[in-house]
């Protein structure tokens, strides 16, 4: 099965630019899609998880997953749109354990909650820190500036 055939089942939209494939997935379908990509299409590696804040437009956050298939020599970018008033999405840790720290970083920096994450704590900022630094409404000079 090729990647595009496989993604027919899940993709809300897809685009290919600069040689990179981006696929938008409904947030509730994320874990199912990841599971399918890993086990049916040999995407062995989760390369990174991050987010983009589109403040003030809604849905505010894009959660971005970069996947790599070593066997097929392919990469794909998955995107889920998450609303800003209640940013929440399922955790991909049950598919790849590496998602653990990657998602903790996104939680720390953007305040997006990952459901069913085994250990959702801040990872880079101190535990008692207020706010999420990579949000666009967080001032560059810090909260007290």
């Amino acid at each position, binding site marked *: 099965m090729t990647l595009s055939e496989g993604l027919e089942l899940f993709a809300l939209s897809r685009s290919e*630019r*600069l040689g990179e494939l981006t696929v938008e997935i409904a947030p509730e379908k994320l874990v199912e899609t990841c599971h399918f990509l890993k086990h049916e299409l040999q995407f062995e590696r989760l390369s990174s998880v991050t987010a983009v804040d589109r403040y003030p437009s809604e849905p505010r956050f894009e959660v*971005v997953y970069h996947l790599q298939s070593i066997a097929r020599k392919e990469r794909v970018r998955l995107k889920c749109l998450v609303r800003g008033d209640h940013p929440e999405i399922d955790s991909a840790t049950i598919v*790849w354990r*590496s998602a653990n720290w990657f998602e903790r970083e996104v939680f720390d920096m953007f305040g997006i909650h990952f459901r069913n994450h085994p250990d959702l704590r801040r990872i*880079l900022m101190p535990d008692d820190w207020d706010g999420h*630094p990579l949000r666009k409404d967080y001032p560059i000079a810090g909260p007290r500036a």
Partner: protein
Amino acid sequence: MSEQENSSAVLTPSEADAPPARRKMTLNMGPQHPSTHGVLRLVLELDGETILSATPDIGYLHTGIEKEFEEKLYQQGVTLTDRIDYLAPLSNNLCYCLAAEKLLELEIPPKAQWMRVMLTELTRLNSHLVWLGTHAIDIGAMSVFLYCFREREEILRIFEMFSGQRMMTSYFRIGGLALAPPRGWRERVKKFIDVFPSRVDEYENLLTNNQIFMGRTQGVGYMSLEDMLDLGITGPMLRAAGLALDARKQEPYSGYEKFDFTIPTRTESDVFARYQVRVEEMRQSARIVNQALEGMPEGPHTADAPKVVLPEREKMKTQMESLIYHFKIVTEGFRVPAGEVYQIIESPRGELGYYMVSDGTSKPYRVHIHGPSFGNLQGLPKMIEGSMIADVIASLGSMDFVLGDTDR
């Protein structure tokens, strides 16, 4: 409070009756422990000398570089990338520039590409030399460090010759190189790379058949390939587990497909195998540098893109148009077409990725750096749980992480 009252408040009656050696102990390793190479804190739970669980605590070196990118012009961002992985600044320069160049759809002239390959391979040597020297010290082989830093010093002098800086080089810029290569660079690099393989022999003489080194590293820090892929580990660690995954071969960038080199692998997946892989990588990097020296193309060192690349000083003073471009680039920067890219390169530590999102202005909307050390460090608990406390030092060293790269 007496000692007895204190301990009974912490321990349950059955635990208090147990002999002291059977009690669990929590040990804080770091954040200032010398063998953590930076500021990493490990919370180790011990039963005697056996590690029951390990919890890495990172973030001590978090500097908010990703946030900073959003406030800087594209060309200013280059200087931030040096400071992420401070043992491989040119690898970070390269990845950042490649990402921006992909968005701009810029064609980079061959000379700049080859120069970039040559200098990033020297960076790999630099990084591996620091790793080897410090790793050997951690295990107790003091003298290797002195040998490694002798060669590293010469590499830093070469960097200084090219860029004026030993460590924070910022020598790669969007569109090419910051400066034309200096007079005499070829002889300098040639002189170094001609003797380098014999220097690697010297390190190997000190370590490869050294019974103490073998005893401390063979069979230590084992991890299966499946666990590594699942936990996001890349680079020499993965190759020491048997998988020849290297972005220079899998997804060539900057002209790596034109070079002849091999990807060393081992299958033992222990600390010693990682040592062997990195030492062989040094030899391969020296081969690449040699090929770059021999086949270095002639031509310009920057792309023909006057709106992006600063004009030469001479032209700026004699041509009106160049002066205008110079003024515009310096004051307001250049606009990058809207879009997003995820650029991968093989840094000395593994897969380095820059995810760059542009909204069409002269500052990046978002830059995410996927540092190889971040993914690699995540595998640490799996590697050391169940092993002895002395092996933690060897295992940590074999991961070769840089905390600046982890915390960004």
